[in-house]
């Protein structure tokens, strides 16, 4: 019932699997990025697939599931650390039905399914966000934080606020699917 969200047809590239990627997004190292299908990469987003693990061979740096949304101006950057004297980047895994609000910076190691991240958030390095969690707008999640399933985190630093309702999974799933349906091209 919600009104459509229009985008200009010239701006977005639609792939065979239904991914919609803005031409104005910065996609570095696209060969290292996996999009699950029906995922939207908005204007101005920056996805750093070029920051790969050192070593030979093919490496997946960032993988996104189905029905994801990378909001306007988001930065997706794989986490890095120096372990036993060696500097390295580590892959970032994101599940299905994950929405990331505008202007958020994500350096998480793992984001589960049905996760909502608000606007203007900072998700610190190696953060693990479990299924159906929600990060409120303007939240700063410090590095190495674990966000348990079905919990709402907010604040600076992000802290547990409350448990989310049992039907969160269905709600988020319906919402992300609807968002994709609403995201319609407009010929100009």
């Amino acid at each position, binding site marked *: 019932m919600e009104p459509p969200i229009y985008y200009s047809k010239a701006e977005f590239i639609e792939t065979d699997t239904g991914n919609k990627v803005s031409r104005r997004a910065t996609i570095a190292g696209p060969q290292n990025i996996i999009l699950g299908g029906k995922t939207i990469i908005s204007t101005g987003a920056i996805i750093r697939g070029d920051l790969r693990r050192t070593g030979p061979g093919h490496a997946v740096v960032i993988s996104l599931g189905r029905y994801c949304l990378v909001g306007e101006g988001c930065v997706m950057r794989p986490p890095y650390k120096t372990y036993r004297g060696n500097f390295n980047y580590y892959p970032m895994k994101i599940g299905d039905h994950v929405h990331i609000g505008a202007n958020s910076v994500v350096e998480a190691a793992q984001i589960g399914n049905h996760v909502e991240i608000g606007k203007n958030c900072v998700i610190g390095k190696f953060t693990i966000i479990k*299924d159906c969690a929600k990060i409120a707008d303007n939240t700063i999640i410090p590095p*190495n934080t674990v966000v348990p399933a079905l919990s709402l985190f907010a604040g600076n630093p992000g802290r547990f606020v409350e448990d989310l309702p049992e039907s969160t999974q269905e709600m988020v799933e319906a919402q992300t699917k609807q968002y994709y349906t609403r995201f319609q091209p*407009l010929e100009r």
Partner: protein
Amino acid sequence: MPPSVRYHCPCLSNSPFPPPPHLASSSYSFHPLHELFFCEECDAVRCNRCVTVEVSSYYCPNCLFEVPSASVRAEKNRCARNCFLCPNCRNTLSVVPSDPPDSGDGRLAVPVSSLNEPPFFLYCNHCRWDSAEVGITFEKPTGLAAQLQKFEDSAPDSLEFERLKEHFEPFIRASSLSSSTNLSHPAAHPSSAAHSHHAHSTSITAAASAALAREIPGVSKYNPLSRSTSSRSTTGKDRSVNKDEMTEYRSRLEISKASVSGSGGGETDVEFMRHLEDIGQVATLEQRWVNSWATPLQTRELKPLRIPLHSKRSKRCPACTHILIKPEQKAQSVRYKIKLVAANYLPAITVALPHAQRLMTELAKKSLGKSTSAAAADDDKSSLSDMHAGKTYPFHLALSNPLYDPITVRLSVQRMHVSTAPSTKESGSPEKARRPPFAVSLPTSSFSVAAFAEAWEYEDDEDMFGADDSEDLPGRGGRETDAKGKVRTVGVLEKRANVTLVGGEVVIGKEARGNVKFNMLVSYTYRSDDPSPEGNEADEPSKSPSKAGPEVKTFAFYTVVDLGQIIPREEPKADSEL
């Protein structure tokens, strides 16, 4: 704020009718649909305020370890592994090794924390607090809790707590025994039943309050004789015998001498305050109040906190104690063994204001191509849904049917509703005194909403937009279609899949202000050939409140519809009366 529909749960009052929506307190009786549960046994809506909750498992929110309930009590509800909270900002602490010795050329040979060198300490990634500040370091990076255990166990607060626990142990054991007998024969002990729902909690509360009555008025000022008689007269009754057997508790530490033995307070604090240079040296209230014992006044005395455990909970119906929610045992699983949520039983209703939607769409088209500034767009959106006093606005209600059978729905505004709910008068009379400054018209006849079918769940239901207009039900007013194809009328506007869109209309008075908010009764009837259409073990058709036929069930519930704010007007461009 966008227009919203919330559902009524009657648990807060004895009347089945919801409170008038203009009262601020009415919001406590209404909940979003997805937060509600549905008890099949009672055929009633339940909310988080009325369900009974029990813990089904405990886990640490940081390491996600599932703590067996036996060790939960022993660990004082906190994680006994490597999880600590920063005492400064409540962030999770991480274990870091010390920096390697300086090579002497002015810069570090290898980046910080790259080599595993003892001693290890806890470090906050957010506020940069580290445990070395308070003199806590570790020889190895594992089993930190065990390494800290001996310090914790020797702390005065845990010693005192152990002593208290020891002191009350025989009493709690005795009273839990007696309460379990009370539970099995609730009628035999009317006094304890009247005390509280739960006999077990009563005994513990009684023990705690008795202890408080003894300890709070002062350690030595009170006469023990008068105390025991007063406790007998107030809380005693059937358990006063038990209480008299208790010996008097003597604390480990005399509280008046606490400041001398280094727990702060009195002269020591004054001295500290006198030499204060920076407000950050004093621990904030938030940093202090989680500590049960004498709370450290100085920031540099704060100790890392072990992370409190979280729990997964199952929920029961308060009336019939049937389980509504039962989570899977695994801590991070989001699946449920039993999940009776209202969204699977009641039709979901969404409300929209077509005039706002149209403007929004145009705005979205216009702003396209320009650099999008999110803040400005949000401002516009909120003002778009405003309604001006003295005008008439249509609104759309979309009802989607979660059942596998078609339903027939009838909508009515609460105060106009007299025929099927006769006692509406009682809520109707105060309404008369303060009539809302707007009038709502809804489709008066019932309409159908098609059954939910998995086939319609296919992702692109955009193709399903072909509206089925053949079954058009007589609504009020004629149908007139404007340029955009939207129908401006009261009645059924569109049917597709398991969603039916109906139109309503609100006439806002010239002097109106506040929100357009009204209670709406939704009653729906569903026909089923199958005696248990929900396919669950507890469904019994005979339990439904009113039966028109052998296979027809009716269920009614209240909602509150909030259409948004009315903009008061000086010179009304009225096209309506009232």
